[in-house]
C-alpha cells in the first residue's frame, strides 16, 4: 500500500463538479445529443426557409410586428423543450439501476445527492444548448422580417431556462420510479406530450378550471411574454341546438408561470434526490 496516497473528502461542490464534468462529456458524445441538435436546427431552418420564401404576411396576416410573429414562432418551443429534456432527464436515474453502472458509480466516495445535482446541471446545459439553436433562429427570423428584436426576447430566454429545469426535475423524478431507461424515457414523453396537454385542455375547455398545477400550462409564459394583447381568461360561446356551448381558455400570468415552474423544480428535484439517495441496488 502506498502510504502517501489516501482518499480524502473533496466536499460537496467538488463532488458536484466531478459528476457534472463527466456526465456532460458523456451527453455530448451520445448520438441523441447530435441527433436532437440536428433535428432542432433542421426544424428551425425549415420554418425560416418557408416563411422567407412565401412571405410571413401570406402565412398569417396578424404578423404585423416582431412580438406577434415571435408569439407564434415560439409556440413550438414548449414541445421542443419537452422532447429535449425528456431525452436527457428521462433516464437520468433509471440508467444506473438498469445496468451495472450502479456498481461502479455508487461505490465512489461521493454523496448520491452530489452525483445527482451534477447530472442535473449537465442535463440542463446539454438541453439548453440545443434549445438555444431554436432561439438563435427565432432571433435571426425576427431581424430578417422586422429588423428588430423585442426587449422581452431576453425574458423568454430566462423563462425557457426555468422551463427546461422544471421539465428536467419532473423527468428526473419519473426516471427514479423505473428501473429501465427506455421505459422511463417513453413514460416521460407520453406524460408530457400527451397526458398533461390533454388534461390541460379538458380542465380548461370543459370544466372551466385553470390548470395552475400543470407544468406545461406554466411553461406557456415562454411565448406568452411576446403577446401584445394578453388575456388571462377568455370564453368562446358556440351555439348548439339546445343552447350554447362554452369553451374556456386560460393563459398564465408571467409571475404565475414562474411560480408553477419553480414549484416543479423544487418539489420534483427534492423528490428525485430522496428517491436516488434511498434507492437500493437489488439487481
Amino acid at each position: 500500500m502506498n502510504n502517501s496516497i489516501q482518499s480524502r473528502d473533496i466536499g460537496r461542490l467538488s463532488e458536484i463538479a466531478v459528476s457534472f464534468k463527466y456526465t456532460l462529456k458523456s451527453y455530448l458524445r451520445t448520438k441523441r445529443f447530435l441527433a436532437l441538435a440536428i433535428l432542432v436546427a433542421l426544424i428551425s431552418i425549415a420554418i425560416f426557409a418557408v416563411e422567407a420564401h412565401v412571405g410571413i404576411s401570406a402565412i398569417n396576416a396578424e404578423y404585423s410586428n416582431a412580438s406577434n410573429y415571435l408569439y407564434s414562432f415560439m409556440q413550438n418551443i414548449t414541445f421542443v423543450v419537452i422532447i429535449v429534456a425528456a431525452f436527457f432527464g428521462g433516464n437520468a436515474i433509471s440508467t444506473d439501476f438498469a445496468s451495472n453502472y450502479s456498481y461502479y458509480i455508487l461505490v465512489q466516495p461521493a454523496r448520491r445527492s452530489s452525483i445527482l445535482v451534477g447530472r442535473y446541471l449537465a442535463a440542463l446545459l446539454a438541453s439548453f444548448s440545443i434549445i438555444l439553436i431554436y432561439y438563435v433562429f427565432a432571433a435571426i427570423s425576427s431581424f430578417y422580417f422586422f429588423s428588430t428584436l423585442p426587449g422581452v426576447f431576453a425574458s423568454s430566454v430566462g423563462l425557457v431556462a426555468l422551463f427546461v429545469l422544471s421539465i428536467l426535475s419532473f423527468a428526473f423524478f419519473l426516471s427514479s420510479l423505473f428501473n429501465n431507461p427506455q421505459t422511463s424515457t417513453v413514460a416521460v414523453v407520453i406524460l408530457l406530450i400527451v397526458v398533461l396537454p390533454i388534461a390541460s385542455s379538458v380542465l380548461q375547455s370543459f370544466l372551466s378550471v385553470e390548470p395552475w398545477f400543470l407544468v406545461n400550462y406554466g411553461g406557456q409564459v415562454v411565448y406568452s411574454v411576446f403577446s401584445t394583447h394578453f388575456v388571462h381568461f377568455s370564453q368562446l360561446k358556440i351555439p348548439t341546438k339546445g343552447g350554447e356551448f362554452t369553451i374556456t381558455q386560460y393563459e398564465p400570468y408571467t409571475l404565475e408561470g414562474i411560480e408553477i415552474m419553480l414549484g416543479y423544480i423544487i418539489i420534483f428535484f427534492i423528490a428525485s434526490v430522496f428517491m436516488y439517495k434511498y434507492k437500493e441496488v437489488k439487481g
Partner: protein
Amino acid sequence: MDIEVKNLTKRYGDKTALDDISFSHKGKGVIGYLGPNGAGKTTTFKILAGLLKPTSGSVFVNGFDVSKDLKNVLLSIGAVIESPEPDRTQTIKEALTMSAEFNGLSKVDIYKQINKYGKLLELPPLDSRIGKLSKGQRQRVSLVAALISEPSILLLDEPTSGLDPAERMKFKKLILSMKKDRLILISSHVIQEIKEVCDEIIFINNGKIMKQDTVKNLQKKYKDLERAYMKIVGS
C-alpha cells in the same frame, strides 16, 4: 482496518437473504467469504458498500457505521461487486480519473496510480472506450478503480468471474502482493480459487454464517478445505 457485522438481517419481501448474521475481523489479511450461489454473499457485500439497506442489525467498517456514515465508509474501501460497468461512453482513462477525482487524488497521483495499476493489471490502451472492452477487461478496469486510492479495505465479490485462466493467475498474484498491508474480503463459490490466498474463511449458506475460522485451523481439523466446505456447507 476492521469490519464488524452485528446481527445483520436482510429481507426482500418474504424472502430472507441474510438471517441475523454476525462476524468480524480486525487487521490485515485475506478473508474468504465462501458459500454456494444464493447463499447471501453478494447481499452482504452490497450492504457493506451501502448499496442495500439492512432490514435490521448494524455494519461497521473501520469504525464507521455504514447506515449513518456511508461517505467515510466509501472513503476507506475499494469495492468490486457484481461485475461493475463504468460509463460505456468513457475511455478507460476517464473512468479511472473520475474515480480518482472522487477520492480526492492530485493530478500527479492520478497519473502515477493509473500507470502503476494499468501496467500491473495489463489494461488495454487507456484511450480505449469502455463500451468496446470485453467483460474481463471491464472487470480489470473496475479493479484498478477500486485500488486507485490505495484503500485499506477491499471488497471483492466473485472478482474472477469473467476472467480467463491467465487473468485469474495474475489476479491471484495481485491479491497475494496486496494482502501484506490490507484487509481483503473476497467472496467466491469456488473454493479452489481462493484457498491459496486466504488467511481466514467465513462459510455462509442460506443466509446464515456456518463457521468462521483460520485456514490453518480448518486444514488441521478437516485435512483440506474442500472437505471442510462439504462438511460445513454441504453439497
